[in-house]
Structures are given as C-alpha cells and as structure tokens.
C-alpha cells in the first residue's frame, strides 16, 4: 500500500521539486533581500558597519536596531539636493545613451540582417564576442584612449589637428560616459534589433517597390514599424541597467558626472551609511519598477 502510494506520487513529487527548487532559490536570494533592504531603509539609527569587521555581533542585536521604523532616511534624500540631482542626471544620461545606442546600433543591425546569409552567423558571433569579454576591461580600454595624454590626443596631434602641447579633454566628462555606455551596451541593442530585422520578409520590400514606394520611404513605412518590437526590447534592455550603472561613470566620468549608482556605492563603501544607501536603492527600484514591468510584459509576448 505504502509502496503504491510512493509510486503514484513519484511523478508528482518530481514536478513539485522542479518548480519548488528554483522558485525557493529566487525567492530567498532575489526577492527576500528586497524586503530586507526596504526594512533597513526605514531603520532609524545608522548602523555603522565597516566591511569585514561587523560592529553588530549577534543577529538579535541586528534586528533590534531595525525595530523602530522611521522615514528619516527618505526625508534625508529629499533634503540633500545631491540625491535629487543624481537621480535626474542618471535618468537623463540613460535616456540620451539609449537614443545614441539606437542611432549607432540600428545601421549595424540593419547591415547584418541584409548581409549574405552565409556570413550572418559570423557577424552575430562578432557582435556577441566582445560581450563575453570582461565589461570592466572594456571600460578600462577607453581610459588609455580618452586620457588627455592618451591615444586620441596623440592621433590628433599626429594628424596636425591639434598643436603640440594641446590636449583633448574628454576623459572625466559626461561625453566619456556616453562613449563608454554606447560601447559597452551596443550588443544589447544590436542583437534584439537584428533578431527583429532578420525575420523581416524581403519580399515585403519588393512588394512595396512594385507598388511604387521608393526605398527610403519603404524603410520608414515598412522596415522600421516592423522592427519596432526589437527597438522596444533593445531600448529597455539598455535603459534600465544604465540608470543604475556604476563602473562606467566611476572610471570614465570623474567627479563631474553624477549618477545614482556611484552615489549609492560611495554612500555604502565610503560613508558606510547602510540605511541611507538602502533608501537610495529603494527609491531607484521604485523609479525602475514601471520600465521593468513593461519590459517583462514585452518579454512574455515574444
């Protein structure tokens, strides 16, 4: 009897485990932390906690310090114009970079989709390859190029555009951040665009031409509208993480560039103010919830 029961239950158990294991993992390590971050952002006393040498020794102590809620940290965020302008500047930089990415990425994706079939896979591979190599290294590569005494200056001096002693000042500016972002996120923009453009039936354009539509016009009335799902996917895939980007503004933007990811990092690692950095993260999350939900619905449709 018992054996029959386990036999009957086995497929059910396997199914249950298949759902439960990844579900629990994601819940525990992805979702639950958000609840904690939310709770800490509401805690009153700053729990000064230098990395690696915790001041709080027991769990109980940790929770007790969290017990009294207050919105002080959030009020603090509104009082200091630094945060306010960091959020705005992050959104602005993300928006501008996404538009730049679209402008740079579209012709590349279009060229790939129109390339002979035999080389298309190789081209896709060539777009993905840099994405596999380290993000940090790719950003680092630009430092040597953009520095005042870097390769661009040397090249421009060599061409006689810049006089000797003159330097180009891009490094540690927002321009450098835009270059770094466009460079690093390009595959995320090109691949969804390519996927959409490659599906496009070439006979549609022939039909349009047959009906008297010139090529430039048929691009705007046929190709572009049909590639819109790719455009939307690519834009969200870039915009959302760029808002919280840390490495690029930190390495290329210098002190002049204000971005919230950098602020949060500084708050956490330099000021060691956990409640405030949690509040910064929660507000960032709230700002990003809308685009994330839109992105997910978009994903589901595909």
């Amino acid at each position: 009897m018992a054996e029959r029961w386990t036999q009957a239950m086995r497929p059910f158990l396997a199914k249950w485990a298949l759902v439960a294991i990844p579900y629990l993992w994601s819940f525990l390590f992805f979702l639950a932390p958000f609840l904690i971050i939310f709770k800490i952002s509401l805690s009153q006393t700053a729990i000064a906690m230098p990395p690696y040498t915790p001041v709080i020794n027991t769990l109980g102590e940790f929770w007790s310090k969290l017990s009294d809620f207050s919105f002080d940290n959030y009020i603090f965020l509104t009082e200091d114009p630094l945060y306010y302008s960091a959020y705005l500047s992050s959104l602005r930089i993300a928006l501008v970079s996404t538009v730049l990415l679209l402008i740079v990425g579209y012709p590349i994706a279009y060229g790939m989709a129109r390339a002979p079939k035999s080389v298309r896979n190789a081209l896709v591979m060539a777009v993905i390859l840099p994405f596999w190599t380290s993000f940090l290294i790719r950003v680092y590569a630009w430092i040597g190029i953009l520095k005042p005494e870097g390769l661009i200056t040397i090249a421009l001096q060599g061409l006689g555009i810049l006089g000797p002693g003159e330097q180009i000042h891009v490094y540690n500016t927002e321009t450098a951040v835009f270059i770094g972002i466009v460079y690093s996120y390009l595959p995320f923009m090109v691949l969804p665009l390519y996927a959409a453009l490659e599906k496009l039936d070439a006979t549609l354009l022939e039909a349009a031409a047959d009906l008297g539509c010139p090529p430039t016009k048929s691009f705007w009335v046929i190709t572009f509208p049909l590639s819109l799902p790719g455009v939307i996917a690519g834009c969200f895939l870039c915009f959302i993480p760029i808002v919280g980007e840390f490495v690029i503004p930190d390495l290329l933007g210098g002190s002049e560039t204000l971005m919230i990811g950098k602020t949060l990092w500084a708050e956490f690692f330099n000021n060691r103010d956990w409640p405030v950095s949690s509040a910064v993260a929660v507000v960032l999350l709230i700002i990003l919830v809308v685009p994330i939900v839109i992105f997910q619905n978009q994903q589901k449709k595909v």
Partner: protein
Amino acid sequence: MNKTTSWFNVTSLVFGFAFLYVPILILVVYSFNASKLVTVWGGFSARWYVELVHDQAIIDAAWVTIRVGILSASFATVLGTMAALVLDRYSKFHGRALFSGMVYAPLVMPEVITGLSLLLLFVAAGFDRGFWSVVIAHTTLTMCFVAVVVQSRLITFDRSLEEAALDLGCPPVKTFFLITLPLILPGVVAGWMLAFTLSLDDLVIASFNTGPGATTLPIKIYSMVRLGVTPEINAISTILISVIAVGVIVASVLSHRSEVEREKAERAVFLAG
C-alpha cells in the same frame, strides 16, 4: 538590393565593428609595450606578463575567480535549466507570474541594487561573507541568463519526442535525462559558459558580497585601475580576453561544424531520393 543601400550597409558594418574591436585591439597591443607609460610605445616586450606571473595577489585573485566561476556557473546551470523547464512546461500554477518575474528581473536589475540587497540578506541571516556568499550571489544573478538561453532552446524542442519516450515505457524523469537533456545540451552548455564568463566579469555584486580572502580578479583589477593605468592591467586583460575568445570561438565552431555536417547529410539523402 540596389548599390547605394548595400554600400551603406557595408560602411555601417565596417564602422560598427571597428568601434567594437579597435579599443580591445589597442589594449592588447599595449600589453606588449616595454614602456611603463601606457600610451607611449616603447618597443615590444613581454615584461608585464613576467611581472604578472610573480604577482601573488593577482594569482590568488585569479584562482578565487575561477573557483567561484565554475561553482556558480554549475549551480546556475542546474537552477536555470529547471527554471526554464518550469516556464516552458507549466503554463498555469499558483505564483507563475511571480516566478517569471523573478527569473527575468535580474536581467535588467541594476547590479548595485542586487548586490546591496543580497549583502543585507547575508548580514541579516548572520551568514559570513566570503567565498560562498559570492558564489551564491553569482548563482542568483547568472541563473536568469541560463534560464533565458535554455528556454530559447526549449521553444524549438519537439515535445512529441518526450511523449514518444513515455509511450515506449520510459518514466518521466528518465525521459528527461535520456531524451530532453541530450537534445537541449547545446543550450545548457552555452548557458554554463555565459554564466561562467558573467561571474568572471562581475565587479559590483562581488564587491558588495565578498569577504576576507575572497578577492576576485575584477575587484583586484578595479583597485589597480583606481591607482592608475598600468601595462600590467593590459596584460591580465589580454590573457582574460584570449582565454574567453578562444573558448567561445572553439565552442561555436564545434557546434557550427556538427550542424553543417548534419545539413550535408540531409542534403545527400534528399538528392539520393
């Protein structure tokens, strides 16, 4: 296709790929620069590589990174494959929306948020930060990428193959290992490689969740970069880039070749009637 547009296509491809590859090329070239000044060419030399080999801190960091990468990529592959199966197979269960949300959200979630929140969980749970906290963090981040890659493979998988196995008397779990897994294996392997390289690459999440003795290569490189640009960083970067590039190219050539062979065989049968 008229001439002007294809001229336009070629130009955009050339400029696009130049933009993607020239900075990396420069980085690689300057790793062989004899001069300590990164931007001034002082002749060819491999001295930075020699110095690298003697830098114990970097070797340790590389070792930690590789171990973290292999472990987290393996866990992430198991979990991500399971998640992909759930998303592909079970259209209705309680909490499916939440589940798919948890699977897709980390793809776009800014790393500073994921890193910080996970750190707070470890602190709240009294979990010592170090090697294992980084492994867990990377597993959580990369399983989503594995899920997406495997899911795209599952979409093209013919479910009637599984039904055929069941029909021939093979129980479900065994069917998964005998039929489904071998056929989605390219996706699973690609998922593992992606997870491994993402782990190898991650600075932000590792920085938040690391502890004593668990300095990964990106953390080490980052601290070196903060101190200034040195050809030694170019040398590490070149090694990393070559290892990954060779791995990815070999994998893709292998999978491409098996596909080509298969296509050839199919064509031969077709021609033979």
